[in-house]
């Protein structure tokens, strides 16, 4: 190749400027004939003309042992940190050595070599053995040169063919979306010069059209080199996945068993509650009959007691089939568009059932129906369970109500039924001590026990049942206390039948 004169001149000037050329001319006997250039910067300042070269620098002995007219020995280290590419020219009557500075590349290569060696030593220190281990482990070792500027250390393992660019330096963020994110943490780790390592955790990503399961670890060697190690973790991932999977399967089974046990517990509560309510009414009616009552009142209590007794008989007769259906229906209920209980009538029926018990305990009660509420309004729910919710709240109110004369002219217990847009609101109030703030937060939780003026009671499951039932129909339930009137108020809202879809009740769709 013949270079244009101007280009040759430019290249020569560039070499002279950047590579600090020094030369030594020897005769065929190896005696130094001439020296030129900054040879002292290569540690050759002591060279003298007229003396054999190898006697002055033993290092050069093998330099001319070549049959070629020209040869290059790259990256010769003349002293620590000083590198030169040595060009050898063999002429007819003289031999020439030309030294071109290559300290930049030499030092960089030395550092990389050091890094490689340190990794190998570190691995050997763990008893891992040989240099082949890195490759055998299929660990891709990348050295960081700057922000998102990496190069491979050693030969990349086979799995990352096509994943890692062939360029000696590359941007890792172009390789993987996950690593793009992880590098933010890695950069912080490398900058803080923390010891140890930072692991990414396993990730799965499609790289070069192949699904990979990998894990990255950022680390720093004692010489300051920042490394990123990337390992395929498919096998360990599968192992870990199996362990976690087993644990989670067990957790799911446990959850299912708990739900089943919970349903049965609630059903048991419902059975007890449903049987007890009419019995309470029967007992209260009988107790009232012990008193010397006018004939008309006595007849009324006989009628109430009889009604309650018949209801209990009916409950017992139907219980098995009834609760078998309930077990499935407890969590969900789908309203037929023409079904659903009449709210006012249902509330009144439950109040009637409680009437003897209220009278016996000298508790005044009342039902307040808002004028705008039609008596034929129905809610989107099951009639029996709706009455059970009201009964639970009334039972709770009765147990925690003040008794005897009140300062204000009002009832001990009141049930208010209101229409609120597409909802019906039923509020059961009782005059009594407030429930502590700490307790209020957990009122509707499972196994929670309310504490009223007369001490602890076992209505917690009842309130939990109320919440579950009301929420499963797309409603809500809450509690508040009126300080002025010293009144507890439990209230629930339920979508009116036909309006439950717009109210967002998924379970009742």
């Amino acid at each position, binding site marked *: 190749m013949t270079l244009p004169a101007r280009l040759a001149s430019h290249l020569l000037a560039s070499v002279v400027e950047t590579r600090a050329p020094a030369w030594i001319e020897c005769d065929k006997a190896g005696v130094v004939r001439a020296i030129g250039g900054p040879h002292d910067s290569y540690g050759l300042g002591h060279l003298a003309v007229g003396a054999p070269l190898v006697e002055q620098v033993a290092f050069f002995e093998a330099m001319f042992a070549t049959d070629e007219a020209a040869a290059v020995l790259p990256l010769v280290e003349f002293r620590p940190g000083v590198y030169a590419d040595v060009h050898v020219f063999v002429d007819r009557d003289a031999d020439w050595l030309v030294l071109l500075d290559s300290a930049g590349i030499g030092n960089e290569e030395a550092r990389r070599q050091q890094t490689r060696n340190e990794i190998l030593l570190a691995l050997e220190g763990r008893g891992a053995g040989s240099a082949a281990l890195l490759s055998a482990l299929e660990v891709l070792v990348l050295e960081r040169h700057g922000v998102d500027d990496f190069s491979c250390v050693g030969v990349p393992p086979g799995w990352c063919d096509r994943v890692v660019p062939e360029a000696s330096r590359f941007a890792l963020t172009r390789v993987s979306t996950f690593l793009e994110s992880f590098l933010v943490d890695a950069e912080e780790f490398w900058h803080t010069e923390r010891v140890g390592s930072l692991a990414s*955790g396993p990730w799965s990503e499609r790289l070069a059209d192949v699904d990979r399961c990998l894990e990255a670890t950022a680390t720093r060697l004692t010489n300051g080199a920042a490394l990123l190690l990337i390992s395929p973790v498919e096998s360990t991932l599968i192992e870990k996945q199996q362990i976690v999977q087993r644990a989670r399967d067990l*957790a799911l089974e446990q959850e299912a068993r708990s739900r089943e046990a919970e349903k049965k517990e609630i059903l048991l509560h419902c059975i007890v509650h449903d049987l007890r309510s009419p019995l309470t009414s029967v007992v209260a009616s009988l107790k009232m009959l012990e008193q010397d009552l006018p004939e008309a009142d006595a007849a009324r209590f006989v009628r109430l007691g009889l009604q309650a007794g018949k209801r209990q008989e009916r409950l017992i007769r139907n219980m098995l089939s009834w609760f078998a259906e309930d077990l499935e229906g407890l969590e969900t209920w789908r309203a037929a568009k023409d079904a659903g209980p009449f709210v006012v009538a249902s509330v009144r029926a439950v109040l009637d059932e409680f009437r003897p018990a209220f009278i016996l305990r000298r508790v005044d009660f009342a039902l307040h129906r808002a004028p705008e509420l039609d008596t034929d309004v129905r809610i989107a729910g099951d009639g029996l369970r709706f009455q059970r919710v009201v009964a639970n709240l009334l039972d709770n109110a009765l147990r925690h109500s003040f008794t005897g004369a009140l300062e204000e002219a009002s009832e001990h217990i009141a049930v208010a039924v209101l229409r609120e847009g597409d909802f019906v609101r039923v509020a059961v109030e009782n005059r009594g001590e407030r429930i502590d703030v700490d307790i209020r937060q957990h009122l509707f939780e499972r196994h929670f026990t309310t504490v009223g003026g007369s001490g602890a009671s076992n209505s917690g499951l009842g309130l939990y049942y109320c919440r579950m039932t009301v929420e499963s129909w797309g409603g809500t339930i809450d509690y508040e206390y009126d300080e002025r009137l010293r009144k507890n108020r439990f209230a629930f809202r339920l979508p009116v039948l036909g309006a439950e879809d717009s109210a967002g*009740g998924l379970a009742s769709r």
Partner: protein
Amino acid sequence: MVARRKVCMLGSFAVGKTSLVERFTQGIFSGQYLTTVGVKIDTRDIDVDGRPTKLVVWDLHGDDVFQKVRPAYVRGAAGCLFVVDGTRTSTLDVLPELRERVLAHAGPIPHAVVLNKVDLADELIVTPDAIRTQLPRVDVHPTSAKTGEGVETAFVALVRRMEQDK
């Protein structure tokens, strides 16, 4: 140029995050529950209101005692979907704390709740209202990874929110 947006899928284990991603990105569903370890990254090009977007979906492992979501996973996310299993209330109970933890690291990014498994109508016990009670003012999207119901809608709605939030 097609915008790239990172979306994270979060929630308790076995709620159907991976199934939702597979349904959304590949249109497939596998009924087998296979727990995710770490992160799975998938992509889908989507056109919403004439704007092409490459969604990079990060399917994060279920958050529980065995695996905790690393803050780094949600960094740079443009939006996220919190997934609830409609048949398990426990998956809703853990959501407020998880949401707080995630938004603390990701910032106030657009997000929504996906109420998954609505095809299991007989077993549903979590309602959209129950979710709104726990997380007021958060969009709730009923979905079924099995039938595909609501899946596209949930992602598209999130992308719209992300576009508005830019």
